[in-house]
């Protein structure tokens, strides 16, 4: 079965980005910047090219794993629904790792590199997936017996769902929806660099994973999210956007003086350094908490 939800949704993506631009221009809610948007769209375009060229690696990996599957799940509506939910959980796990392990962050940082938050940001997709091989997170589903085509299908649906949540044009959704689903409000928090919002809301479709696993943070009306990364990029060059963290890892490895340094530079959280001279998100949050407590000791 060959049915790519992302490809089918592309015209809707384009129309929605245009509609949002008009909304931002005339309602004044949200921000667009030409070079930022151009970079996001080029990153999206490039990710399709890279995905096409290197997609065979995932197919090869799947064919390595599938002979060991426990059973074979046949295509049916309940099977697809179950696969969608389980796939979303593996997305959560991958996404959490992508923020906590530098190797995966090197790929994912691309998506967070814009200081803007609009629908074009959703299209700012990485090019380095073939290097980080994050698709190993799908292995349990293959081992359970879900067919590769079904995984590709639900993965596409997941990606399509996540498009519309990249906007400032929508405030809050109805309470029941906010309780279960990932929404623009929850995902704004995820893209924020404010210390209180760092490393939270990793969900793709169902925000319940964050609520169950202790990574949920509610958007605070009093603290507007500031988007981007802790050390924002000063370039719109798509190649630098796509690969700068890989270059950073390579430079650090060249200066590593022990095996501990090597392992730390690759697998420790972004910002880790042997001498502690850089800051991880945990360190930033701790410093922020210390500062906040000093400012208002009664709280």
């Amino acid at each position: 079965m060959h049915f790519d939800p992302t490809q089918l949704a592309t015209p809707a993506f384009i129309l929605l980005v245009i509609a949002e631009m008009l909304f931002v221009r005339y309602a004044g809610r949200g921000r667009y910047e030409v070079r930022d948007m151009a970079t996001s769209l080029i990153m999206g375009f490039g990710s399709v090219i890279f995905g096409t060229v290197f997609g065979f690696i995932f197919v090869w990996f799947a064919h390595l794993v599938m002979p060991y599957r426990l059973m074979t799940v046949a295509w049916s509506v309940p099977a697809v629904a179950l696969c969608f939910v389980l796939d979303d959980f593996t997305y959560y796990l991958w996404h959490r790792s992508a923020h906590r392990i530098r190797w995966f962050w090197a790929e994912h940082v691309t998506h967070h590199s814009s200081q803007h938050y609009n629908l074009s940001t959703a299209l700012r997709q990485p090019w380095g997936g073939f290097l980080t091989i994050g698709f190993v997170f799908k292995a349990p589903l293959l081992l359970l017996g879900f067919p590769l085509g079904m995984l590709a299908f639900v993965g596409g649906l997941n990606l399509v769902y996540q498009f519309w949540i990249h906007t400032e044009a929508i405030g809050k959704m109805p309470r029941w929806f906010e309780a279960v689903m990932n929404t623009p409000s929850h995902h704004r928090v995820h893209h924020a660099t404010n210390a209180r919002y760092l490393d939270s809301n990793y969900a793709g479709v169902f925000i319940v994973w964050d609520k169950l696993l202790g990574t949920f943070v509610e958007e605070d009306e009093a603290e507007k999210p500031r988007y981007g990364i802790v050390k924002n990029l000063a370039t719109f060059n798509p190649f630098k956007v796509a690969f700068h963290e890989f270059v950073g890892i390579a430079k650090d490895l060249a200066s590593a003086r022990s095996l501990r340094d090597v392992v730390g530079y690759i697998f420790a959280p972004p910002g880790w350094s042997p001498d502690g001279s850089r800051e991880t998100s945990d360190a930033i949050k701790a410093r922020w908490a210390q500062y906040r407590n000093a400012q208002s000791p009664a709280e």
Partner: protein
Amino acid sequence: MTDQLLYLAISLAGVAGMVGLCALLFGRAVATLDTRSATQRLSCDVPGFRRGNSALSADCRSAILEDARNGAVYLVTARGDGFVTRRLGRSDLKTASRDGAALALRFSDFTFPAATIAFHDESVARDWEARMGRA
């Protein structure tokens, strides 16, 4: 193959069209700052930041500020309609040289383009060149 090339061409034309529409609607924004907004921005990026000495570039697109708590020197500079901040410590700078009232900075971070910051007064540039050497 022809179909794929056609798909590629349509996609690129689509990207160009959307960027064109964005330019039409929003123009090419140029962010400017003053000492207050530069301080605000640094306070966001560096929790607890307390402004000490500071200097604004002549074009109001960059500012150099010192953290009164520890003497650390920071750059706030415009990129598009927003700003980027960087600490200007010895390990962050490849070179810092002065030509009259202008400071030329080259960064260790390869994503950060070299910057020339022109001040109104040569003494300001000289003063910050010295501070960066100590930071």
